[in-house]
């Protein structure tokens, strides 16, 4: 009993010394630091702002088939806002699609013939937007909605408590009905960045020791091989997690991505995903003999499938069945769904247990594979 306790303290001390060493490696290597912290931040900002949802002077078209006073008032309000410029005003909708295709206008507001107080209480404004840039489309919808809502409120105040009439905004989006936007983009970038950073750094850090020959020395030491692997992976787990927190804070406070669901659930799921990535890194490190190969394997091997098959840039539903099936083995796909659902939809664990189970299964399989490869090496 006493012996065992003593043994545990020794392992604990070895572990501590090892982890301190790993942190020295990381913090003394500017390249690692750059890849670890600067790269993700730059990527998030680049992707985030490249897909900015800020809107100024968007060209729109108004088709006023009603010629009522209300339609005129709303048109004026739209014109007065800094967000829109009414490039065209016509009385029929004939040329709408042509103009949109030519890129002359981003959206069309249509007042149907019977629009106005005189014709009835329920009124509909039609709004057609061009959806190839879903962020802009979404923003336009929101702003037009706000302007009309504001108009109704003014009318309400003019008439006391009685609502003179209601206006519905009927939205149709051309070319991108699913509305894939930057809000969806950010979770994808998070998944991609974590995948690449965790996998690459873990793989390279192990292979570097193999290349220098220090790995052999560690294996000859009384450190248990499994402890060597855990000690190599743990610092990167901690660093990746810190990294994730930075990315999440940036997403929320700089890019304005909402976090509707539980922060703790998101953190727990992220830890699982980081673990998956680390085991990928360990597996690659058992295959690669040089740092260059490890880098290539984890950067190229992960980057391309992640970009292609996560579904945040290219919608998976539009892909051939084979690729859809292939996408299932890309861990980032599942993590992307998890992050998206937690951040944007605010769902609980009950809705994402399947994705969680898949990620967990992948992690276990990868760990088993790495250990097997590792054992083979030790034969």
């Amino acid at each position, binding site marked *: 009993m006493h012996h065992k306790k003593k043994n545990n303290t*020794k392992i604990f*001390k*070895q572990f*501590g*010394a*090892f982890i*301190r*060493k790993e942190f*020295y*490696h990381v913090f*003394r*290597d500017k390249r690692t630091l750059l890849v670890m912290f600067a790269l993700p931040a730059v990527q998030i900002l680049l992707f985030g702002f490249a897909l900015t949802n800020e809107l100024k002077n968007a060209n729109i078209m108004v088709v006023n088939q009603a010629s009522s006073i209300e339609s005129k008032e709303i048109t004026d309000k739209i014109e007065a806002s800094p967000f829109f410029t009414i490039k065209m005003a016509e009385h029929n909708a004939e040329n709408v699609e042509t103009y949109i295709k030519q890129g002359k206008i981003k959206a069309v507001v249509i007042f149907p013939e019977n629009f106005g107080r005189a014709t009835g209480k329920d009124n509909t404004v039609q709004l057609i937007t061009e959806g190839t840039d879903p962020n802009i489309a979404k923003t336009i919808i929101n702003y037009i909605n706000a302007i009309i809502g504001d108009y109704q409120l003014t009318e309400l105040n003019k008439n006391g408590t009685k609502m003179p009439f209601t206006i519905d905004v009927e939205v149709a989006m051309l070319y991108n009905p699913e509305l894939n936007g930057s809000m969806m983009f950010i979770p994808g970038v998070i998944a991609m960045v974590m995948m690449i950073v965790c996998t690459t750094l873990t793989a390279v850090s192990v292979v570097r020791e193999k290349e*220098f*020959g*220090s790995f*052999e*020395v*560690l*294996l*000859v*030491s*009384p*450190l*248990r091989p499994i402890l060597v692997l855990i000690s190599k992976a743990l610092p990167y787990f901690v660093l990746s997690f810190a990294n994730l927190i930075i990315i999440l804070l940036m997403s929320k406070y700089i890019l304005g991505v909402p976090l509707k669901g539980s922060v703790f659930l998101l953190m727990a799921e992220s830890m699982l995903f980081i673990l998956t990535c680390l085991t990928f890194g360990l597996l690659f490190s058992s295959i690669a003999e040089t740092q260059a190969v490890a880098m290539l394997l984890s950067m190229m091997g992960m980057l391309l499938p992640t970009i292609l098959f996560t579904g945040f840039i290219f919608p998976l539903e539009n892909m051939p069945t084979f690729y859809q099936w292939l996408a299932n083995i890309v861990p980032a796909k599942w993590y992307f769904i998890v992050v998206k659902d937690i951040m944007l939809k605010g769902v609980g664990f009950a809705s994402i247990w399947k994705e969680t189970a898949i990620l967990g299964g992948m992690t276990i399989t990868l760990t088993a594979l790495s250990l097997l490869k590792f054992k083979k090496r*030790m*034969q």
Partner: protein
Amino acid sequence: MKHKELIVDGVNITDKYAIYAENLTKKFGDFTAVNNISFNVEKGEIFGFLGANGAGKTTAMRILSGLIKPTSGTAYVAGYDVYKEQEKIKNNIGYMSQKFSLYEDLTVVENIKFYGTIYGVKPKENKERTFTLLETLNLQNEANKLVGSLPLGWKQKLAFSVAIFHIPKIVFLDEPTSGVDPITRRQFWDLIYDASNKGITVFVTTHYMDEAEYCNRISLMVDGKIAAMGSPAELKNKYKANDVNEVFYHLAHSAKRIE
């Protein structure tokens, strides 16, 4: 905890020998890397393990240092069975390889402390030994410098001192002086003699035949087998050679396996 003693022909192996190997064989598929080798290394001895590249030196060394298990045969290192007691072997040996000379991005002291802790040297003792070590190697001023900034010769000497920092029973040196100038090599061997005088058994592989002369005994491996073994003087006598290099040339000439 005292381990089981091994008695062969009335000789207590664990008492007499640091390394005891009999009919040791390691096969990788069809390839026999180590073919039925038998040898003993006495405690405190400096044992040179020579052979061309691909002769099986590295594999034999990996078995003896508890990294891999042999296919057949018997071997005891520091009194521990290479089949069943690899962990105990690892606790009782030191190891230094040609490629490795410590972590370049860690300071001298950080490197020493790391390996000391890995090998279970207590913090207080770690401090004291570090102080002595720095003094012996005359590295006091470099204590907090990164190892990467030291000249190669210093690194090698430091690496050796670190390999025996926990005072192992045996230290395995895998071509420790490759790439080092003759003067530093001489100094390096002074350190090896010091260790041997303190009772540490030294098991060393080398390419430099002049170094082989410094060993108490040497063995020459050819094609996975031990072709010759004895003190340098004995071998020179036997093969009527002027130096070990000639002995080596004579024996290695028959080698079929060339890397």
